[in-house]
């Protein structure tokens, strides 16, 4: 047995907690679900491998001397993955500083804060790599099976990317901490994480739209323009791609670089970990002043008071602002497509409809959870002289109002270009938002607003129902925009999803 407070002891403690946390998240805390979860994971892995098989066949023939096109595609895919890994790592590093959890206990003990920090950063690198591998694994396996085991080197390349992403995230967060202070860092780091995660995908999509009028990033990777702009085959810039494709010496180089950078970052930054955590802890006890002006209350109806309160809280929620910003960022490529094809290629605009509808459903789900389940003063609101139905109505109105505000600019622009399609998109957005909100109402629980990030853990069923519903409404709207009767079938499926959600929801139980 290892001695308490050693690195091995901390590692075992952290691993134990992480495993229990993951298991609780997957099974919603019910042991009876473990077997079902295992079956679902196996089925999911099989489906992902099948999908991967269909998608990567084109790269399977790329051997030890890959073509420029293959190198561009692999490098592009790695950059997209890296931007997402960097986003996740930034999010995790920020949480390591700000989430109190057991830090007060650990820092008040004689254990070395440096060891704790070293271990937690290592855990972030591992988690970041594992998340990327969950998505990349099926593709790598299929390529290894179809084109040769040299593709297994991609696992090592992903590990190196995870280490570099964590190092960069750590350096960025600490730089923010030192330049703008702990209070602003939390907000800005979340925004940067959201932007970084979306920026590269959006950039490539924007390039694809401007070059080919298509949202497909692969169209850009395979284009002559990309081929002309790309450096020569001997360039050092291809090293990561070559390493991923099985060049063993290069793989060793990038693995050594990644792990070396991570270890150096831990060695440099862990000295000040306790200082940063203490500074971050201080912000819980500081107050933020609002603009002090003449106090002028307005006579409003209780419903309006509720709506105003919800909007104020939504506006002041940094996590929500960053998430909404990310949703809006993902709407930028379709907006660009709309602008580019305005008045000319109307057929290209069909792609906008499902994107808008999907965004509406996803945003509504999050906002509805915050407004309905994440009410911080449930007794106050329940104790107000209002019928329960009126309270819920006001909250739903607040959610739908916020969605309308976010989507209105694009819908108005679409109306100017193609009124009929805008109408279909608007109806689809309304249906998706209403369905996601309804699902949140059926599955509502009493939770602290700060649990928003982990709202999925309270009900897997609600999460899946919300996602399937949004997809079904997006499909319905897309088909309706094309004018095919298949939209009716997709619509029926969307309604069936909603009915299924009601059947399994706690509200349907007597």
């Amino acid at each position, binding site marked *: 047995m290892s001695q308490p407070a050693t690195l091995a002891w901390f590692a075992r403690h952290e691993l134990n907690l992480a495993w229990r946390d993951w298991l609780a998240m997957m099974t919603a805390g019910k042991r009876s679900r473990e077997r079902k979860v295992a079956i679902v994971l196996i089925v999911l892995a099989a489906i992902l491998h099948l999908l991967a098989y269909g998608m990567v066949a084109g790269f399977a023939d790329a051997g030890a001397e890959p073509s420029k096109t293959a190198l561009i595609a692999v490098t592009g895919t790695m950059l997209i993955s890296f931007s997402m890994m960097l986003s996740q790592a930034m999010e995790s590093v920020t949480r390591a500083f700000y989430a109190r959890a057991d830090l007060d206990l650990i820092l008040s003990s004689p254990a070395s804060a440096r060891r704790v920090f070293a271990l937690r950063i290592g855990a972030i690198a591992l988690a970041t790599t594992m998340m990327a591998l969950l998505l990349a694994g099926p593709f790598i396996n299929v390529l290894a099976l179809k084109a040769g085991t040299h593709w297994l080197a991609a696992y090592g390349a992903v590990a190196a990317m995870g280490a570099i992403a964590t190092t960069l995230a750590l350096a960025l967060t600490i730089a923010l901490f030192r330049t703008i202070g702990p209070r602003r860092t939390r907000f800005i780091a979340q925004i940067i994480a959201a932007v970084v995660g979306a920026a590269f995908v959006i950039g490539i999509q924007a390039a694809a739209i401007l070059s080919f009028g298509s949202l497909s990033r692969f169209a850009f990777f395979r284009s002559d323009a990309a081929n002309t702009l790309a450096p020569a085959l001997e360039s050092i810039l291809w090293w990561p791609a070559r390493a991923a494709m099985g060049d063993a010496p290069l793989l060793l180089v990038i693995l050594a670089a990644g792990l070396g950078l991570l270890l150096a970052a831990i060695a440099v930054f862990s000295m000040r970990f306790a200082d940063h955590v203490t500074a971050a802890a201080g912000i819980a006890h500081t107050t933020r002043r*609002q603009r002090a002006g003449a106090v002028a*209350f307005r006579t409003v109806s209780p419903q309006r008071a509720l709506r105003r309160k919800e909007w104020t809280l939504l506006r002041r929620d940094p996590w929500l602002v960053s998430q909404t910003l990310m949703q809006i960022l993902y709407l930028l490529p379709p907006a660009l497509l709309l602008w580019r094809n305005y008045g000319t290629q109307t057929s290209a605009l069909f792609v906008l409809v499902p994107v808008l509808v999907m965004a509406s459903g996803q945003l509504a789900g999050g906002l509805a959870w915050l407004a309905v389940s994440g009410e911080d003063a449930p*007794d*106050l609101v329940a*104790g107000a002289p209002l019928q329960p139905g009126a309270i819920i109505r006001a909250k739903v109105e607040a959610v739908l109002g916020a969605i309308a505000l976010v989507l209105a600019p694009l819908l108005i622009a679409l109306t100017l270009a193609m009124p009929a399609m805008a109408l279909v998109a608007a109806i689809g957005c309304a249906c998706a938002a209403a369905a996601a909100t309804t699902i949140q109402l059926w599955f509502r629980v009493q939770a602290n607003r700060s649990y928003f990030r982990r709202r999925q853990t309270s009900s897997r069923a609600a999460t899946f129902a919300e996602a399937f519903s949004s997809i079904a409404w997006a499909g319905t709207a897309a088909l309706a925009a094309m004018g095919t009767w298949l939209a009716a079938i997709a619509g029926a499926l969307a309604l069936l999803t909603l009915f299924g959600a009601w059947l399994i929801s706690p509200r349907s139980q007597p």
Partner: protein
Amino acid sequence: MTIPTKTTTPFALAIGGLSKRFDRPAVDSLDLTVRAGEFYTLLGPNGAGKTTTLRMVAGLLRPDAGSIAVFGIDALAEPVAAKRIMAWVPDEPMIYDRLTPYEYLEFVAGLWGTEAKRAQDQARDLIGWLGLEPHANERCGGFSKGMRQKVALAGALVHDPRLIILDEPLTGLDAGAARQVKDVLLERVRAGASVIMTTHILEVAERMAERIGVISGGRLIAHGTLEDLRQQAGTLGGSLEDIFLDLVAEEEAAA
């Protein structure tokens, strides 16, 4: 400050045969009355059913049986009408971290449909009385427990309730904050409001309450003035602490 008293009933609160069962009976055929303009304190050991009783009165829990009347209004049949004239302050302050005290009070006034000018004057007075002026435009997120409790109390009073229900409002407050809260409550009672409050601080009950109820095992085992309780407990000249401990021990022995 004026508290309208339109109804003719002498009782601010009349509870009859109130029962609520969770795994075991939490409140068991409870009868209790609070007179209009009275300061009433409810005492009891942990798990006695005090909070459950008050939550049912505030309309936050549905009783299994019994009746609740607030100034003659049947709170179970007409919950909205009853809620309009009462306020509930739980032991854990219900406030929003991202609103300032003024914004919070404006929200609560809006929820109760209070006329803006009246609510604004009330808010200004309450912020002043409770010593919250320096923090009135700061978000509540960084407030101490005492400050949060004062903001919650101001919220409860901003719509001029006729019946104020408080569950352990003084827990965790320092002496100064506790004094401010007690002063505001007594001032409200002088203005005509009725207060029912639970507390574990027996000295507070002894000093502030006109009548005291002792609840144990979900039932009211004794009630009245301090003198009445002394007689019921047979502890002549004893402190409220002695009386309370005797009554509860007697009840537990009988159970």
